[in-house]
């Protein structure tokens, strides 16, 4: 019973949403809109659940005096300050200060790190070991040069070839891949609807 009820609910709601998506049935539309609104509320509460889980984990680390627990203290303090200032008002000066001067630069700095890691990975791993690897390297080099202003100065045709690569071979490969993934998603969805896949319940019965 503990597993049968959620499996039935998942299947029933899934079928309702599929039928509602394709057919204009006013009663089903109102039910599905209501369910979607519930999902929005549950997602918002799940954020709170995550914050509670995070706080629980780090308070435990502090009380057990684990190494580097000072970072956990810092986390709890910033969590509380950000939550309190954000709840007070979305345009609260403290909240905006944290967003504009801490979150945004830190996030941008981490995003920029990707460039360095791409460079070291390219240096370490991009070897012309096979014909496919050579094609990969050549296409990648042409696209990199085509998308940067300097490429056009080196040779005017780089942007033209780049556009051709994006509009033909890349498009074909992407389309094939996306069709495969889409069919895979439908397969997983059907298995969930039929109760065969129960990973959302936390493992097999």
């Amino acid at each position, binding site marked *: 019973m503990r597993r049968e009820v959620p499996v039935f609910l998942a299947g029933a709601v899934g079928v309702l949403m599929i039928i509602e998506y394709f057919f204009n049935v006013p009663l089903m*539309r109102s039910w599905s*809109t209501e369910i*979607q*609104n519930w*999902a*929005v509320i*549950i*997602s*918002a509460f799940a*954020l709170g659940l995550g914050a509670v889980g995070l706080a629980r984990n780090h308070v435990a680390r502090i009380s057990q005096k684990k190494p580097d627990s000072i970072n956990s203290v810092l986390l709890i303090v910033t969590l509380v300050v950000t939550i309190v200032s954000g709840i007070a008002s*979305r*345009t609260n000066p403290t909240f*905006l200060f944290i*967003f*504009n001067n801490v*979150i*945004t630069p830190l*996030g*941008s700095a*981490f*995003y*920029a790190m990707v*460039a*360095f890691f*791409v*460079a*070291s990975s*390219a*240096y*370490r791993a*991009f*070897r*012309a070991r096979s014909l496919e690897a050579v094609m990969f*390297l050549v296409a990648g*080099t042409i696209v*990199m*040069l085509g*998308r*940067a*202003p*300097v*490429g*056009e*100065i080196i040779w005017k045709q780089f*942007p033209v070839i780049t*556009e051709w690569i*994006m*509009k033909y071979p*890349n*498009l074909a490969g*992407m*389309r094939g891949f*996306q069709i495969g993934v889409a069919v895979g998603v439908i397969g997983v969805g059907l298995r969930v609807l039929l109760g065969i896949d129960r990973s959302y319940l936390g493992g097999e019965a």
Partner: protein
Amino acid sequence: MDTILKLGRIDRRVLYILMVVLLLWPLIKPLGLPVSVSSWTRQAYGKIDGLKAGDRVIIDFNYPAAGMADVHPQTAAIFNHLMKKNVRVVAIAFVDQGATIADNLIRSWEAQGKKYGEDFIHLGYLAGGETAMAAFVRDIPKAVPTDYRGKPVSSWPIMEGLKTAGDAQMLMYFTTSLLPETWIRQTSQWKMPIIGGVITVMGPQGEPFLQSGQLAGLLVGMRCGAEYEIMSKAPGPAVAAMDAQSIGHLLIIVFIIFGNIAYFAERQGRKRSGL
């Protein structure tokens, strides 16, 4: 021979320092490399330029602060274009940080004389991903009863007659993660024009939808942001960063060449010694 093999064993910290120095240099001393405009940007610009004064556009600010460098220049340039054409904007965010980014942008335009509630409105953040989008498109006032500033959305003139997404003339989304088919799927019954602004790596993914006509336009990365700034005759931070992008791309190509020279030299050496 040893020198050639050493090319393949450079400490990655040396590579990082080289990158920092060479990327900073054009930001301090710009090279002024010309930026041509691609067909992607021309197509998107043309579609947006076709909007009339008073038209309503829904903009989804679907990116966090971390993605601002790649996507925000596009958003800002397009917002600038829309404001100059007196097109009205309904801003919404399905990513939490997107709400604050949208608020900052809207307030900057309020400071320039545009009116909140008439020229634009900010509906805030709606949690729930695509489920929230589905609820939003079919009944906007029900999904978002109050705006970001806490007032009932029905009290603002811009929301008059806007019940579903299909009541708007265009939808735009700017994102670092949202799949293009998400908005296409949710708005398919209205066949409304959708323009996407994505990070550079997501460009190839959006191309099939652009080719099939399901996307009316696609802007890819900071490069398209720079191109849009040029087309709008308002060069900004994206144009300024293009020189650094050029140097960065060249540097990575040089690293790849070094690595491959060392690889082939090593392979030759092994062949000669019979291994």
